[in-house]
């Protein structure tokens, strides 16, 4: 009798183990556990090729910490596919490009002024994207800048003063998020090497989340003052490892040359 009870007890234990809830993460293909990084603490980090996460509204979420394609020069074919081989300058644009001399005249980035969306995206520092149904927020490590973009269907604001980052709004084209940016101040450059933009520029970016670990980014410039026709650069962004995170970045921290005069202070150009 005792032996029978023991057998029954063992069976009950076995059944309870088999029927107990299985943690969801054990069914995934974890690529590593999060250690105080960008990914939610305690959750398993999905495989990079696992399906793209979705927003509550069913659209793909672009959320995550991303490593962009660093393009210090968007025409440099050595960096990655998707570059623009030749830029279609207008006479004004060509003059802007050929006279850009940051050593002699200073550069706004050397004065720790905002890079704007293009130069931040093409910079070397990662970006953490926060995304919900109504807005997407780019948290850039570069100079700890942020850019909030409504995706709730609102139009551009009328009569806003121009700014370094301009104003952006987003909308969906199928599963692609389209972000349009206007009202930039005309001082920002596309990239580190200094390809120009005017205050008439409109930048259109598309974001397509291919899977958990990858996102296609297109960057289109429509700036009739600077370029004779629109041009596009295409990049593949890769999600950063789970234990990476955005770090504080203060350009002013050690920019001593700006104060001792060895960096030429940038000034608003005379048009």
């Amino acid at each position, binding site marked *: 009798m005792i032996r029978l009870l023991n057998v029954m007890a063992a069976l009950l234990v076995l059944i309870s183990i088999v029927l107990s809830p299985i943690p969801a993460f054990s069914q995934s293909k974890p690529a590593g556990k999060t250690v105080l990084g960008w990914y939610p603490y305690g959750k398993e980090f999905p495989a990079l090729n696992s399906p793209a996460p979705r927003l509550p509204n069913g659209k793909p979420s672009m959320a995550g910490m991303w490593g962009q394609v*660093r393009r*210090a*020069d968007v025409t*440099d074919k*050595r*960096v990655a596919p998707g570059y623009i081989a030749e830029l279609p300058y207008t006479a004004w644009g060509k003059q802007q490009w050929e006279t*850009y*001399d*940051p*050593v002699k005249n200073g*550069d*706004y*980035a*050397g004065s*720790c002024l905002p890079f704007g969306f293009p130069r931040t995206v093409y*910079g*070397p*520092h990662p970006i953490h994207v926060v995304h919900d149904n109504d807005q997407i927020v780019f948290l850039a*490590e570069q100079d700890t800048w942020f850019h909030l973009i409504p995706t709730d269907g609102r139009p551009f604001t009328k009569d806003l003063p121009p700014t370094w980052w301009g104003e952006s709004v987003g909308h969906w084209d199928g599963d692609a998020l389209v972000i349009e940016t206007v009202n930039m101040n005309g001082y920002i450059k596309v990239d*580190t*090497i*200094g390809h120009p933009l005017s205050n008439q520029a409109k930048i259109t970016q598309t974001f397509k989340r291919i899977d958990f670990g990858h996102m296609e980014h297109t960057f289109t410039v429509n700036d009739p003052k600077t370029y004779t026709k629109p041009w596009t650069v295409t990049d593949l962004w890769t999600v950063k490892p789970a234990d*990476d995170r955005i*770090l*504080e*970045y*203060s*350009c002013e*921290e*050690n*920019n*001593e*040359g*700006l104060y*001792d*005069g*060895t*960096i*030429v202070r940038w000034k608003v150009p005379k048009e």
Partner: protein
Amino acid sequence: MRFKLGFALALVCAAALALPALAHHSHGNYEDTFMDIQGVVKEVHLVVPHSWIYIEVKDAKGEPEMWALEATGRTGLQRIGVTPEYVKPGDTVKARCHHLRDGSNGCLLGFLKAKDGTVKDWDGNNAPPPADF
């Protein structure tokens, strides 16, 4: 020395990478080619926008001279495991860097071989260590 460093910083503050094609606009005061240099660390400044290491190098006559090595900012270095403990004053290090065009004692990293023998890309490109370094 400070003047030289400041001048260098003026040119690179807007740039975080040393792609040779960018020499015209961003790193124009550094040579495109690499040189190797070895010395004893005197100061380490892990800061943004760019970090600096000062090393004492023996010149051709055996006399000590100070060199300034420029690197990417603290965040980029932290991301590849560079901490204040990784390179300290007193350590002997070897650098592969771009010499200042004016010939003064400044150099843009490049790679740095630390006291423990590990080599990292201090330019923030996560480039693999060169086989001959």
